[in-house]
């Protein structure tokens, strides 16, 4: 595995790359609050099969640059970064695999540049989070439905969640989030009770080692969380500018996978969207969605071999 910095779209983007230099590229996009590292099991597996696995730290994360302005974290900036990474490496179309925010960004990448994506495997976040008429702001909808303490609402006030994370401690925050398995939306009461008491240890599941947590903690200690949180601070702004794509379908062959203990699966409308006709209507080239029993949000870390298998079996067709 190689670690490289690609200069593009005005920033330096750190990428982990493994696989033959002429192998078809698989672009792996992490979410919040993880890093390129969340693909550590899939990268060598893809490389061994002749693909070139490319896993960036998204803007604001890890060893990539984190511009200071919130306005530098719209979906247009991030997709711009990825186009720069892709064009630096190849003129061909690429395979894209996304998880969490990486999945949402991957949907936008397919909307904006379908000419660059050969096929898509998206994890956890379905296309129900598509562009909508900006008369209703997405955050207002979320706030009305879940209340002020819904985590996305708690992320809005600049510095607030950063201060809370600082007080609770990054280690505790990372452990708590990665091990969260409640089949319901993530509510963070302002009394910080979600994080548990400082004496209470948070044991790790079999799929997460102490050194994995240590890697995340080290990187978030270096960088802070502001970069990643800034993605959420652009929800309304993104939707304001996604007008050209309201009603636009995804025209890329797509595989979608979600765990049935993923908190996203329990957000309003998501189950109905995944199992009903709308998903296939919006994504005509969608294969039958896969719901993995007993698996929570961090699916590519919890079931690494199964996810690798699903990716490979799908992209092999193209």
């Amino acid at each position, binding site marked *: 595995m190689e670690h490289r910095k690609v200069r593009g779209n005005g920033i330096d983007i750190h990428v982990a790359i493994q696989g033959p230099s002429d192998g078809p590229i698989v672009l792996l996009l992490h979410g919040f609050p993880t890093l390129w590292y969340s693909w550590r099991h899939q990268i060598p597996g893809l490389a061994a099969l002749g693909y070139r696995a490319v896993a960036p730290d998204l803007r604001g994360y890890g060893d990539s640059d984190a511009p200071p302005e919130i306005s530098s974290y719209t979906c247009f900036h991030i*997709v711009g970064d990825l186009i720069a990474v892709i064009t630096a490496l190849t003129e061909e179309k690429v395979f894209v695999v996304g998880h969490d925010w990486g999945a949402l960004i991957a949907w936008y990448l397919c909307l904006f540049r379908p000419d660059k994506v050969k096929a898509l495997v998206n994890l956890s976040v379905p296309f129900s989070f598509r562009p909508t008429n900006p008369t209703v702001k997405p955050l207002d909808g979320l706030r009305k439905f879940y209340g002020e303490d819904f985590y996305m609402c708690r992320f809005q006030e600049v510095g607030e969640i950063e201060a809370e994370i600082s007080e609770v401690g990054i280690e505790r925050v990372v452990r708590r989030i990665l091990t969260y398995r409640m089949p319901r939306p993530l509510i963070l009461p302002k009394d910080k009770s979600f994080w548990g008491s400082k004496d209470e240890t948070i044991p790790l599941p079999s799929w997460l080692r102490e050194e994995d947590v240590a890697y995340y903690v080290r990187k978030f200690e270096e960088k802070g969380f502001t970069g990643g949180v800034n993605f959420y601070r652009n929800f309304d702004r993104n939707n304001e500018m996604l007008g050209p794509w309201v009603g636009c379908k995804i025209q890329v062959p797509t595989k979608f996978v979600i765990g049935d203990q993923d908190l996203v699966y329990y957000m309003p409308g998501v189950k109905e969207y995944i199992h009903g006709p709308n998903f296939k209507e919006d994504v005509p080239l969608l294969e039958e969605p896969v719901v993995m029993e007993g698996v929570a949000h961090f699916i590519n870390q919890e079931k690494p071999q199964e996810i690798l298998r699903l990716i490979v079996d799908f992209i092999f067709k193209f």
Partner: protein
Amino acid sequence: MEKIEHTTISTNGINMHVASIGSGPVILFLHGFPDLWYSWRHQLLSFADLGYRAIAPDLRGYGDSDAPPSPDSYTILHIVGDLVGLLNSLGVDRVFLVGHDWGAIVAWWLCMIRPDRVNALVNTSVVFNPRNPSVKPVDAFRALFGDDYYVCRFQEPGEIEEDFAQADTKKLINRFFTSRNPRPPCIPKTLGFRGLPDPPPLPAWLTEQDVRFYADKFSQKGFTGGLNYYRALNLSWELTAPWAGLQIKVPVKFIVGDLDLTYHIPGTKEYIHEGGLKKHVPFLQEVVVMEGVGHFLHQEKPDEVTDHIYGFFKKF
């Protein structure tokens, strides 16, 4: 003119005033600065007679359409979003597209990001300028033409509005519309528009009534909406990174008057005639340079321009 219908459509978070007439395949006409739907008054009537449905909105910030206050609401994504919303609301899948000036820039970008909504494009006056990855557009203009270049003078919110407010709007409209000066327009800070000589008598193609229509609308609305497009240029540049290097894949015909100041921007003639434009617009099929014609070509020579447009769209 009475046959032209005026409606208001809710789209992309704004109310948009739309002038339309006729039935048949839809042609969407996009005006520039400082202009209105009215720019296309001749083409609206002609194309209705030719069996098309001709539609000309007041773009965001202009005339009887909404004008949100902040320049950040005028990125190219906002404007294209307005038009896609308009098409969705009219139930139109694909349109023929005609653009002029800022409307041409909007048309290039509609074709770039939603080529699936456009059959063919006739664009006028302003070529497609590919995104320079290292230089923002306003910075580039400043380096090329200096701080008094109109694009630079338009940047500071409120500043040029004072000059507009002090000037006689009818005289300004006359000046802007009938200018045949090929040099890059500069507005020295010390003079503002007071530096402009009194305009000559109106040419045949621009009547008192026309000037009064424009002056009334701009006196009501002000110029800020239109100016905000210029103020969002650098922001639009930042936001369009995803389309860096992408070609425009729509059949195109390009028309410009040889007295248009845009035609005289250094490098433009070579860019148009020696393959530069074609490199970025591979389906560019025809280029027409109209002799002795200025910036507002479709108002100056309406029948000729209508014929050029019709001749092209007929093929599809």
